């Protein structure tokens, strides 16, 4: 074995195995453990904003979503009919394209009384279609069926259709839209829980 030149900083206990050296060098072992701790601390500080960024959409306050949006003049909705109406989601974002469009079913019960249903089936969100002759909303996915007032008629849904809150502003029908309606994020956001139409609807002035 050739003689190696001694580096000034190299240890002199060459007779020990690497493991033995490590055991002997309690200072370096300590510094390594310290460095591990340091990295854990830096990692934790780094992780907080990263996780915050990742969970951002889930952390959002429900009340922050949604806005009132006009569906058109009252004359568009003849009394006794249920019509499909499209609007642009007030909570769309950059690059949504066609997915920013939303459809809803507007039922005009009387001059001042409306019901505005989400197209999303209360079972798993497929688009329900209105069949005027049989007075049913039918879902193409798993066969959910609803009566004209949105209440559950048959099939797998556990409740009636989701309803948007509405008000009449002058000559226009205005609804409150935001979250995509699901069982947890119902059509009209946090302020009012969605109610079945059989109950009274006090906000419908």
């Amino acid at each position: 074995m050739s003689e190696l030149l001694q580096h000034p900083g190299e240890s002199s206990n060459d007779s020990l195995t690497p493991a033995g050296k490590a055991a002997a060098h309690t200072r370096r072992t300590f510094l390594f453990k310290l460095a591990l701790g340091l990295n854990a601390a830096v990692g934790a500080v780094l992780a907080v904003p990263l996780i915050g960024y990742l969970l951002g959409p889930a952390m959002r306050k429900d009340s922050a979503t949604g806005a009132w949006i006009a569906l058109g003049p009252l004359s568009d909705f003849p009394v006794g009919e249920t019509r499909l109406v499209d609007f642009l989601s007030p909570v769309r974002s950059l690059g949504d394209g066609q997915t920013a469009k939303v459809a809803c079913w507007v039922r005009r019960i009387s001059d001042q009384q409306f019901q505005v249903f989400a197209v999303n089936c209360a079972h798993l969100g497929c688009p329900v279609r209105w069949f005027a002759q049989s007075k049913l909303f039918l879902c193409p996915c798993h066969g959910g069926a609803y009566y004209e007032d949105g209440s559950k008629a048959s099939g797998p849904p556990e409740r009636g259709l989701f309803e948007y809150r509405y008000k009449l502003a002058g000559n226009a029908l205005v609804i409150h839209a935001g979250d995509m309606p699901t069982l947890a994020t119902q059509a009209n956001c946090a302020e009012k829980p969605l109610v079945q139409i059989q109950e009274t609807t006090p906000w419908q002035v």
Partner: protein
Amino acid sequence: MAGLNGLKERCTSLLKGGYGWLESRLGLIEPLTKAAEHPTPSNSASWWYVFGSAATVLLIMQVMTGILLALVYSPSANEAWGSLQVLNHNIPLGWYLRALHGWGSDFMIAIVLIHMAQVFTFGAYKFPRELTWMVGVLLLLLTLGMAFTGQVMRFDQDAYWGLGIGASIASRVPFLGAPLVHLILGGPILGAPTLSRFFTLHVFVIPGLLLAGVGVHVWMVLFHGVSDWPMPGRIVRKSTYVREYEELNAKTGLPFVPDAAWKDAVFAAAILFSLMACAFFFGPFGPNGPPDPTIIQTAPKPDFAFLWIYAVLAFLPPSIETPVILVVPVLAIAGMLLLPVFASQGERHWSRRPVAVLMLAVIAVTLGIFTRLGTYTPWSPIMQAWTADPIPPRYLHNRTPLERQGALVLEDKQCRNCHSLAGEGGLRGPALDSIATGMTEDQMIRQVLQGGGNMPAYGNALNPSETKALVSFLGTLRGNDNLAPATDPSRGLIHTSELKTLPIQPAVKPR
């Protein structure tokens, strides 16, 4: 001649020198060659052992075609659908690349499932290969994850509403429902952030995990050796298995390359060729309609691999649906993961494991039945039946005007969305061709007006004259042989009692 030999020698020495230079610096070729030539029991050099390598080959194929598609695909909600049209129609061979990638996905799921069934049937998950199986289960889940996120990449109507179904399932989680939905969608609605995050999953996250998992999986196959062919009575015991395997390998071992690997190679080529043929002859999947949620004239359906889930979701009663959706998958995955922990020793041969074979058969048949049901969705109303199919004329012959009016009511009220007549119409409710042989007029009136048994009530949609006409038409439907109409025995009793006894007493005495 001497000159030619000299040239040959020089070339050989140059190649050797080049190899020596490379390997002395890289240090990988020799260990990899050794790994490839590792001995494997001669009885495992079988055609039954080719599926794992075929799945790996398909994965590489998917990565390659995926990278090529990413050259053109635009992962943006307002451009994705259009960029697929460009791929299909404007880019030379774009359609073929899409077809290879789409069919490759189906092939990969099929091969991974066959591989899993083979390993299960052969008891190859037992000691010492438990962790290999567990990693394999995760690889199956990742493969299915690739299939689902890949379906989202197609960003058509099915992708849009499929995501909606996913979000609706997540919304059923207690307490965390709303945050989960927003996490999946990336915002309040299904849009640009949704596609971006599924693109990230499909292209970065899951493939990374998948490749790393395959690396670990293959490493463990090398580490433990390819499992020997199971023999009835050859019991796996933790205390003896490794020694027995080594003895078997010492006695009968063959180098994996080439003695066993030639079969893998032939099968891989056959699979790739079938994949190319499917892609060439059947073409790419979709995209179908654009992801416009206001186009509601659609019947969304998932890709083949998920049809069985789609079918199961139609059959779950509402009262237990949420618990079943949330709990059963967790139990099923935990069961698959923990299988080798509970059955790590004992018999491996299928003839000594009847419960295992039965379980596999039941699962396979169940998945097959639900998938088949998912292809024609008998639970769904046929949404356009009433416009397309008039009542067949033979059901109108020799009918009274009232009965014919009833036939019109049946057509007009869209009864055939759910009920078939002469083979045309929905399968959700019973066929009506011989309805009058099973139900009396009273029963039909009650059923039509009040509904029940998964039929909506039509009391609000039919006026009394329509109901009368409809039921009198239904009363004429007694099958092709004009079977006897249903009768109500209690009616008969009333009539006889009227004949024999005194006038019926009023139930409540007048005051």
